[in-house]
């Protein structure tokens, strides 16, 4: 059976029904006793099952822009997006979708450093489910909208972080999906480019495209129409955006990652 299945006559855009999910994380074997030290000689990592969702129920209607806000540590925002997109399979329960859900995640590996931006546009668009004909047809749009014409033949590792995010953003939008699951980078690039991103996203929203978004409070207020706080294995609150933001608990690792990314951007500009 195919991993990603569509349910065209589903009334909702995405529906999670009684979803259970645990993910496996790598932990180091600890301990300072002789036995524990000896044990580490035969491998010092182990995989641990970390429960994320227990009996999660959530329905997203077509045309909604839902803010997904973390309400506890290991709340599972990324996992929720990946479940929606079909790149994780629930342990129990079901995830149904009307159309393909295209995810845009911070740590997606969509950009490959060893190939050029032009090649990345191709590979990225193909991975996100476009056919070669569609990529050929939309390539011009990607280059024009992203303002990528000068960097096309540069290797991705030589491109600034801001530009890299522009590439990912434009390639993701070029899928013209009916549902997007976007983590952190709702709009990218310098101010002028951000304005263009906003115009584009607002246009999609009024066309009835559905969004699941996790990003800064400011952007959530500007863009979203509904707030969902997740954490502790399920939905904590299904409410307004403002109320959801009030219930936000950023988890520390997440916070550290954001800070590191900002530092990387600054390093780049300093060079």
């Amino acid at each position, binding site marked *: *059976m195919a991993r990603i299945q569509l349910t065209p006559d589903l009334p909702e855009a995405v529906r999670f029904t009684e979803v259970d999910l645990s993910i496996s994380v790598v932990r180091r074997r600890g301990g300072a006793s002789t036995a524990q030290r000896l044990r580490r000689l035969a491998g010092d990592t182990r995989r641990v099952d970390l429960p994320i969702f227990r009996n999660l129920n959530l329905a997203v209607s077509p045309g909604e822009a839902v803010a997904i806000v973390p309400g506890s540590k290991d709340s599972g925002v990324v996992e929720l997006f*990946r479940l929606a997109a079909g790149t994780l*399979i629930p342990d129990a329960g079901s995830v149904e979708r009307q159309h393909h859900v*295209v995810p845009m995640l911070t740590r997606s590996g969509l950009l490959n450093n060893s190939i050029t931006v032009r090649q990345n546009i191709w590979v990225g668009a193909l*991975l996100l489910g476009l056919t070669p004909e569609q990529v050929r047809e939309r390539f011009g749009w990607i280059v024009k909208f992203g303002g990528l014409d000068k960097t096309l033949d540069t290797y991705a590792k030589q491109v600034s972080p801001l530009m890299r995010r522009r590439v990912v953003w434009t390639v993701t939008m070029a899928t013209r999906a009916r549902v997007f699951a976007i983590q952190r980078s709702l709009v990218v690039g310098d101010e002028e480019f951000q304005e263009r991103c906003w115009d584009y996203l607002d246009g999609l929203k009024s066309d009835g495209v559905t969004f699941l978004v996790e990003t800064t409070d400011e952007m959530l207020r500007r863009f979203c129409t509904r707030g969902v706080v997740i954490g502790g294995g399920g939905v904590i609150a299904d409410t307004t955006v403002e109320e959801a933001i009030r219930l936000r608990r950023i988890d520390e690792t997440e916070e550290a990652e954001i800070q590191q990314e900002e530092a990387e951007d600054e390093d780049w500009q300093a060079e």
Partner: protein
Amino acid sequence: MPYVTEVLLWRYRSVLRMLVVRDLHVKYRQLRLGYVWAILEPLGMSVTMWFVFEVLLGGKKLGLQPYYLFLTVAILPWWWFVNSISGCTRVFIGQNRTLSVSQLPTQFNVVRVLVARAADFVLSLPLIVVAMLITRTYPTAWILLFPVAMVIQFALMWGVGLLVASVSAMIPDVARIIRILLRAAFYLTPVLYSLSNVPEGARPLTYINPLVGILGLYRMAWWPGEHEGWQAYATSFTVIAILMVIGFVTFRRVEHRILKAA
């Protein structure tokens, strides 16, 4: 039926072609000699083996004549097999973050490796032509079985590749075990020698090793008499079918865990 087309990735053939071309570009781009390496690597191996076993050890008893051609015809498919299987052990290990966004079937990653290595194999085929010209030994009509053997070998590697990729995603140590097993398999498969070097009673049994059947088909073009009858081939192909089923079933059972680890 829709299940079959999904599994066989036929829908994705054009995407596959583009990605494989890209993979080959990346693999050969930094090398001064580029694609010539697809030829040089197996060439080095066959010349070394020929030198050791024919010139140094005077291996008239080993294999069939002309020995250099006999060796080349088997070493290229063997090289293809080794590179594919060891490539598959790495597919789901480490930096494969694209699994978190990819809308393509998960097993696409495995097939991508297999097809890229198949392209390497096709690029190295001129070596057989050269070996034929040097030894002035030309094929019989059985050469038609050569592409058939390629298809069957691909099927075998698809099954084994899925199995190996799934298991080594769960247990990284498996990649190293596979390396040892492949080295052992090189000597247990009649690449350097022919089946006539195996004790007569044991010959039909060797066909349990599916590569014996496949190499037999490749060599049929030049040495049509060198096999143990069609029942022996049937044994090899049954084993291949079983391995394919095991590979596909194992992969389906661990697919959700592979995704979780990405």
